[in-house]
C-alpha cells in the first residue's frame, strides 16, 4: 500500500463516514419491496466479494453459488434439525461450506483453466442432484428443499425484530462489513500477495518454494467460508432453500457481476453487483420488463466483454486519472501567472 498523506487520510475518513451514513440512512428512503431487495443485494455483495478472492489465484469456479447453497443448507439444517441457536447455526453453515471446499480442492486443483471451470461445474451439479435426490428427501427435502427455517431470534430487550427487512439489513450490513474487512486484510497480507504471484507466475512461485496447491486450497476454503456465510444469511432471511435457487443461472449472474465490475480491484465486483442490481430494479421494473431480465444481463455481459474488457472499475480509474490530469494541468497553467 502506498503511503498516504495526512489530507488523503482525512478524505478517506470523510469518505468512510459519508458512505456509512448513506448505508445507514438508505433503507428509510425505500419502499418495503425495495428494502427486501436491498437485503439480498448486501448478501450478494458478500457472495461476489468472496468469489473475487478465488479469482485472485487465477481460477474461475462455477461452483461458487452451490457452495453458498452448502452454507445455506448447512445452516438451515443445523438450526432446524439440531435446534442450534441461529447465529451459531450460521457459523456452522459457513464452516461446513469451507470444509466442503477443502474436500473438493483435492480433485479440483489437479485441473487448471477450462478443465477447472468444467470440473467445478460438474462437482456443483452433483451436489445439486444430491439435494434433489428422492432417496435423501428425509434430509434435504427433495426438489422442494427445506421450508420453515427458523428466523434470526428477536433481541427482546432492545425490541429489535428481524422480521422487519430494515433490521435484517442492518444485521447483514454488520456481518458483511466485518467479512469484507477480513477479505481485504487477507488480500493485502503476504498471503494475498502470494495469491497474485500464483496467478501470474505459478511456475516461478513454485520455484521459490511456494506450495501453490496449499495456497490455492486456502483461497478456495476462505472464499467458500464467506460464500457459505452469505448462504446462511440468505436462508434465515427467506426461510426456505431449494436446489433450483443455487442453479447455474444464479452462478452466471455472479460471473456477470464480477466481469462487468472487473476483478482487478477489491471494489470492482462490488461495483458490478450494485450497479447491475440498481439498473435491474430501476430500469426493468419501471418499464415492467421483468421477463427480459436474462436478455438484459446477457447483452450487458457481451457489451462489457467486447467494449469494456477490464470492467466498470477501469472507468473509475479513467475518471480518477482524468481528474488528476486536470489538476496537474491547472497547476501548470497557473504557474506562469505567479
Amino acid at each position: 500500500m502506498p503511503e498516504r498523506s495526512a489530507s488523503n487520510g482525512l478524505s478517506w475518513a470523510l469518505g468512510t463516514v459519508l458512505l456509512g451514513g448513506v448505508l445507514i440512512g438508505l433503507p428509510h428512503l425505500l419502499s418495503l419491496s425495495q428494502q427486501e431487495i436491498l437485503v439480498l443485494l448486501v448478501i450478494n455483495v458478500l457472495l461476489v466479494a468472496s468469489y473475487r478472492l478465488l479469482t485472485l489465484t487465477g481460477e474461475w469456479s462455477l461452483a461458487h453459488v452451490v457452495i453458498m447453497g452448502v452454507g445455506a443448507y448447512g445452516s438451515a439444517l443445523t438450526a432446524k434439525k439440531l435446534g442450534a441457536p441461529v447465529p451459531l447455526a450460521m457459523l456452522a453453515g459457513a464452516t461446513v461450506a469451507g470444509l466442503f471446499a477443502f474436500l473438493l480442492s483435492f480433485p479440483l486443483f489437479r485441473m487448471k483453466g477450462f478443465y477447472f471451470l468444467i470440473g467445478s461445474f460438474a462437482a456443483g451439479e452433483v451436489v445439486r442432484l444430491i439435494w434433489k435426490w428422492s432417496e435423501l428427501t428425509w434430509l434435504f427435502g427433495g426438489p422442494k428443499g427445506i421450508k420453515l427455517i427458523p428466523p434470526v431470534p428477536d433481541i427482546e430487550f432492545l425490541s429489535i425484530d428481524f422480521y422487519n427487512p430494515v433490521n435484517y439489513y442492518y444485521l447483514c450490513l454488520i456481518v458483511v462489513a466485518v467479512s469484507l474487512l477480513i477479505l481485504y486484510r487477507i488480500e493485502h497480507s503476504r498471503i494475498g500477495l502470494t495469491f497474485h504471484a500464483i496467478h501470474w507466475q505459478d511456475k516461478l512461485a513454485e520455484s521459490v518454494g511456494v506450495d501453490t496447491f496449499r495456497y490455492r486450497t486456502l483461497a478456495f476454503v476462505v472464499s467458500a467460508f464467506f460464500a457459505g456465510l452469505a448462504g446462511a444469511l440468505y436462508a434465515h432471511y427467506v426461510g426456505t432453500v431449494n436446489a433450483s435457487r443455487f442453479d447455474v443461472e444464479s452462478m452466471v449472474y455472479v460471473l456477470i457481476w464480477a466481469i462487468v465490475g472487473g476483478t482487478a480491484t477489491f471494489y470492482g465486483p462490488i461495483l458490478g453487483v450494485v450497479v447491475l442490481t440498481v439498473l435491474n430494479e430501476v430500469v426493468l421494473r419501471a418499464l415492467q420488463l421483468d421477463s427480459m431480465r436474462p436478455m438484459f444481463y446477457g447483452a450487458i455481459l457481451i457489451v462489457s466483454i467486447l467494449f469494456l474488457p477490464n470492467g466498470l472499475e477501469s472507468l473509475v480509474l479513467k475518471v480518477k486519472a482524468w481528474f488528476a490530469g486536470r489538476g496537474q494541468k491547472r497547476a501548470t497553467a497557473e504557474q506562469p501567472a505567479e
Partner: protein
Amino acid sequence: MTVELLLQTIVNATYAASYMALIAVGLVLIFGVMGVINFAHGELYMAGAYTVVALYAGFGVSFFVAVAAGLVFVGVLGLIMEYALFRPLRDNPLGGLIASIGFLLILQTIAVLGFGVQMEHVPPATQEKIVFANGVVLTYQRAYVIVATVVLLGALWLFLRKSKFGWALRACAQDREAAQLQGMSINHTARLAMFIGAGLAGVAGALTAPLVSPTPYMGHSVIITAFIIIIVGGIGSLEGAVLAAILYAFVYTFVTTIYDGTLANIVGLLLMLIVLIVKPTGLFGAKERA
C-alpha cells in the same frame, strides 16, 4: 433384467447415443477450430427444437422441411456468434466462453418471449414403429434420429478427410498460425466450423423435438451431457466424442432403467470428474490443445 428389457434398453441407448453424438461433435468442432468452449450449445439445440415447434407444429410445414430449416436457421445463428462474438475475441478464449454465456441468456429470453415457459407438445411425424422379435420396439421417430446421425456424421467425416475445405479446417484446428501462413483464411474456416457445429446441434434439436417436449430451459441438461461427453472423449477429438457419446448413452440409459434418472445424472458427472482427475486428455487418447 429380462432379455426383452435388455434389448429394449440397448435400442433406447442407441437412440440416445445418436443425438448426443450430433451435439457433442458440433461442440468439439467449434472448440477445435475456434479454441472456444461454446456454452450456448445447449441453447442452439433448443433453437433447433423450437424451429420445428414453430414450422411443423405451428404452421403445418412438413416435418423434414422443418428439420432442414432448423439446420439452416441454427447454422446461421452460429455464423452470427462467430461474426459478432468469437471473431473480436479471438485472442481471448475465456472471453469467448463468457460471451457465449451472454448469447445463451439472450436466446433463452427470446424463446420465453416468443413461446412462453410452458412445455411444447410436438405431435410425432409418424405413428409407425419397427417391432423386432421379443417385442422390442423402435419408433420411426427415433429411427430418423439414428439414421440422420449416421448420414450426417458420415458426410462430415468424408468432408473433413477428402475435401479441400476439410483439410483447411483440420489444419486450422492443428495450428492456426501455420495454416494462416499457408494461405488459408482463418475467418473462412471459422465460419465453416461454426455453421457446421451449430447446424448439427440444430438438427439434433429439430429431430428430437417430438420426443422431448421442448422448453426454453432444455439447453441446460443438454450442455451438461455435452460437457461430459467431450471431456470423457478428450476435448478436441471428433472420434473420441462419438465413442464417448456411445459409452455415456449406454451408461446413462442402463442406470436410468435399472435405478433412476437422478442417479444416472450423478453417475455421468462422477464419470466425467474421474476422467478429469485421472486422464484429463480423455479416455480416447486425443492430444491436448492449449
